[in-house]
């Protein structure tokens, strides 16, 4: 073979072709080009996922105090800053961004001798403020996050109505693993949680299969893990960064799962780790054994103080035992949490009502500090005509009666007034009792709010309907109908609006649109208050009050140096807030005792 000497000359033909050389001006890049970063600061929540997925440690979060921070909504005052001395333009940060705020532009030229210009905080205007078009964006096809929550197995409607068994079955190991693996460890849940639980840490531990570590992380801030793993209002999940494009992580169920994996003994051992063995010689009395009181007791006992809890009811737990239905919180799980608290050296004296068997003044002399954590056990009334009838009950009283096992005559028909979670608890408890006694459910629920505005959780409303409860939104109660001394029903009118223009509670009704709901029993679930009868008048006068609520500082300290208050009576009804308050009070008392302040006389 020798090849041709002349054929190559054919290439001279290209002399007459148009040149392929491009003009010197930079071409526009392709539509999904991966150029410099853009970040929509209104969408960005500062979760830092981009900085964790970055393989080159090229993204660092910067804190700007002028940005809006809202832990409850899961927004941090942080934004990513990109180091173009590290970036490789792989766009994993875009694909992993939970909000879709981050994208890459079609801008690709940056030339400088100043190294500092290679580190910048991207916004919508691009690297040089020209506002380049978006290139590699968050599409439907390149989202790397797992957005679907693992389904939670539940007992079917028919079976669950029959008894008080727990509805939620809990994750199986595979579902828990997958659910835990969805977590991107941003920690927004930690910020949002009232007691700042170490959720990313325990979720990671669940993913790693290290349940000891998971429980250890839970007990760092939460002595009611089993309870909160079931009934927490889970503000963490509303703040979860995954909720922007999908379902938030089932943080609450994972907590429950972690605790259910270990034997109560093992949980107790882990909870007792790090407890002080030395006795401080100080004594603290706590009135009320709800989540706030027992959390305070738990913390103080671990610090070596002698703690005695006084409980008026026959068993400890407060609202957790006498308010929350058993189908949401099995009592053995509650007992497990309380047993572990007891094991820290907390003494709980049940059946003792302060103000009757003992007095607050007596406690004040006997103990170094006293905590009032009596919750909100007194129901409010609608005060409509006929509401003084004996068959008109407050929801808290109804629930206490049922869950304490006292005698209770189940009504064939009942109507609940209220649209919150307590109303749902009452209605669903009644439904179960009716089903057991009569085989059928006849419960009405009348809420002032429209369906969207109802305060109860969506799943509660959904499940209540499944269980045969008739939910009537936008109905205002007018009177309880009594015939021959017997309660027969509730008359309601349509509610047009609840608040006036200034935002005050001032409902307007359409009096023409009246309806009657049959009821042998009417339950009022329109709010609760604290039963402060135990406080002697002399002390009430020394304390500060604000709109009927006891005024305390951030640490729960009252105007009296030896008295603290915590829990629902201060913060409103919520278990996790009560736990958070318990921690604050405990550390405040501990500090005071160390400084020799706050001693009773």
């Amino acid at each position, binding site marked *: 073979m020798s*090849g041709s000497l002349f054929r190559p000359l054919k290439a001279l033909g290209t002399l007459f072709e148009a040149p392929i050389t491009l003009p010197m001006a930079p071409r526009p890049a392709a539509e999904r080009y991966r150029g410099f970063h853009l970040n929509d600061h209104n969408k960005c929540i500062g979760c830092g996922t981009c900085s964790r*997925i970055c*393989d*080159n440690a090229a993204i660092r979060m910067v804190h700007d105090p002028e940005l809006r921070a809202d832990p409850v909504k899961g927004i941090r005052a942080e934004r990513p800053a990109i180091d173009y001395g590290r970036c*490789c333009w792989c766009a*994993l940060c875009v694909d992993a961004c939970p909000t879709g705020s981050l994208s890459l532009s079609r801008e690709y030229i940056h030339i400088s001798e100043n190294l500092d210009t290679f580190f910048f905080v991207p916004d919508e205007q691009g690297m040089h403020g020209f506002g380049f078009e978006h290139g590699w964006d968050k*599409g439907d096809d390149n989202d790397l996050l*797992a957005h679907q929550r693992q389904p939670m197995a539940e007992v079917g409607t028919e079976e669950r109505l029959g008894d008080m068994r727990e509805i939620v079955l809990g994750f199986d190991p595979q579902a828990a693993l997958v659910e835990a693996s969805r977590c991107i460890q941003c920690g927004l849940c930690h910020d949002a949680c009232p007691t700042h639980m170490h959720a990313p840490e325990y979720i990671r531990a669940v993913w790693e299969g290290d349940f000891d570590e998971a429980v250890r992380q839970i007990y760092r801030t939460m002595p009611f893990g089993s309870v909160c793993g079931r009934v927490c209002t889970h503000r963490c999940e509303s703040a979860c960064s995954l909720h922007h494009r999908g379902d938030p992580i089932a943080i609450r169920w994972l907590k429950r799962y972690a605790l259910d994996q270990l034997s109560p003994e093992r949980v107790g051992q882990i909870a007792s780790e790090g407890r002080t063995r030395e006795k401080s010689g100080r004594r603290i009395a706590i009135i009320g054994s709800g989540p706030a009181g027992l959390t305070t007791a738990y913390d103080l006992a671990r610090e070596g103080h002698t703690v005695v809890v006084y409980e008026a009811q026959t068993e400890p737990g407060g609202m957790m035992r006498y308010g929350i239905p058993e189908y949401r919180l099995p009592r053995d799980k509650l007992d497990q949490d309380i047993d572990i608290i007891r094991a820290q050296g907390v003494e709980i004296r049940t059946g003792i009502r302060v103000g009757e068997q003992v007095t607050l003044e007596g406690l004040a002399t006997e103990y170094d500090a006293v905590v009032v954590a009596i919750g909100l056990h007194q129901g409010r009334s609608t005060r409509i005509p006929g509401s003084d009838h004996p068959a008109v009950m407050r929801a808290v009283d109804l629930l206490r009666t049922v869950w304490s096992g006292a005698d209770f005559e189940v009504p064939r028909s009942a109507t609940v007034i209220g649209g919150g979670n307590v109303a749902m608890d009452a209605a669903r408890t009644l439904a179960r009792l009716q089903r057991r006694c009569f085989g059928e459910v006849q419960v009405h629920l009348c809420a002032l709010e429209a369906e969207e505005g109802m305060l109860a959780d969506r799943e509660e409303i959904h499940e209540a309907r499944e269980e045969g409860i008739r939910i009537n939104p936008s109905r205002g109660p007018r009177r309880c109908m009594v015939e021959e001394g017997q309660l027969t029903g509730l008359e309601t009118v349509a509610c047009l609006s609840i608040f006036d223009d200034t935002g005050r509670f001032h409902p307007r009704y359409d009096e023409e649109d009246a309806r009657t709901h049959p009821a042998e029993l009417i339950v009022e679930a329109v709010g609760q208050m604290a039963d402060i009868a135990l406080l002697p008048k002399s002390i009430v006068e020394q304390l500060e009050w604000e709109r009927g609520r006891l005024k305390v500082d951030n640490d729960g300290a009252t105007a009296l140096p030896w008295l603290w208050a915590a829990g629902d009576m201060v913060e409103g009804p919520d278990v996790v807030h009560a736990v958070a308050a318990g921690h604050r009070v405990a550390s405040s008392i501990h500090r005071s005792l160390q400084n020799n302040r706050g001693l009773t006389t």
Partner: protein
Amino acid sequence: MHPDHYRHTELPPSTEYELYFGPNHPGIEGNYALKARLAGDTVVALEADGGYLHRGFEKLMEQRLWIQNIALVPRICVPDPVPMEETYARAVETLGGLEVPERAQWLRMLVLEMSRLTAHLFYFGGHAATVGLYTNMFWGVSDRDRLLDCFEQLTGARVYHMYITPGGVRRDTPPGFLDSLSEVLDYVEGRLPKFDDLFFDNAVLVRRATGTGTMDQAFAIDYGVTGPNLRATGLAHDLRRDYPYLKYAEVEFDVITETAGDAYARTLVRRGEVIESLRILRQVIDKLRSVPGPIRCPLPNPLAWRIPAGDAYTRTESSKGELAYYIVSDGSAKPWRVHVRGPSQMHAVQTLEALCVGARIEDVAQIMFSLDACPPEVDR
């Protein structure tokens, strides 16, 4: 150096002398060095010196999450990065038992063959330059650029695509992409006769490449030579056909062979492979027009992604030969060990050293380019 300080050099009393090629030398492909012992202008012995492009990839991959490594792998071989992504992804899929959706498999074949085309066009340019045919180099590079434009449309980047991810690919084709790619393929096909005129049939190339760097089949097998270089010695071995992966079993293509085993034969094999790649690509484009479906299997959150313990050895036919990844997982979120076996590791060291012996000094560059040795693949 200041002229005052120039020193005179005393040669040893021998007819042989040593000459350093590279790392800064236009006849060397990439950043690589050769130390030649010469008698006159004939190479007596040659020693390769690598490591100039060593970045410690295998170590770095052990430090990064499974997903993060997709950004690292294409950088192991710059002119032909896609087979790196494919081989890594397939090894992870083998370990993790991931099922790649059909459409994603076709998309992967699309980018693999596009990458082969770019690499071969680049090779034509590079090989031509070593024999002084610069026009051809200009052509090869600018035709390759058309394909890079297609890559940019599809993957958002010209050279480092980071497109294939374990479980599938990162994005679907943008609207109109298949049509514009078809146009480019037609263009490339139309260019081949011109390449024939200017390059393959050029007396300069034919005379200089014929008989240069010749190896027979036994030598090639002994030295672990693979890919087009092996096929140029007459052995029809191609992993796409013999160990089919993705959908290669479902497309029609021929395994191109030559028998001479010299630099010219190697060039001709690659010319034939360009035609076969075009053939495959057209079939893939047809499939992509009809095969629907997801482009990725469901994957867990990339930050918490563990691959079951085990090991996998996956191989891909890259434009240069047999590319293999050996990956060991200990069940954690990062690889325990990744071993990259690049075809150039065989071609650029022992084979090159042996083939250059007896060659003339001006052919050393041509031999290296005709083997399509890729130094970053050697150094990792």
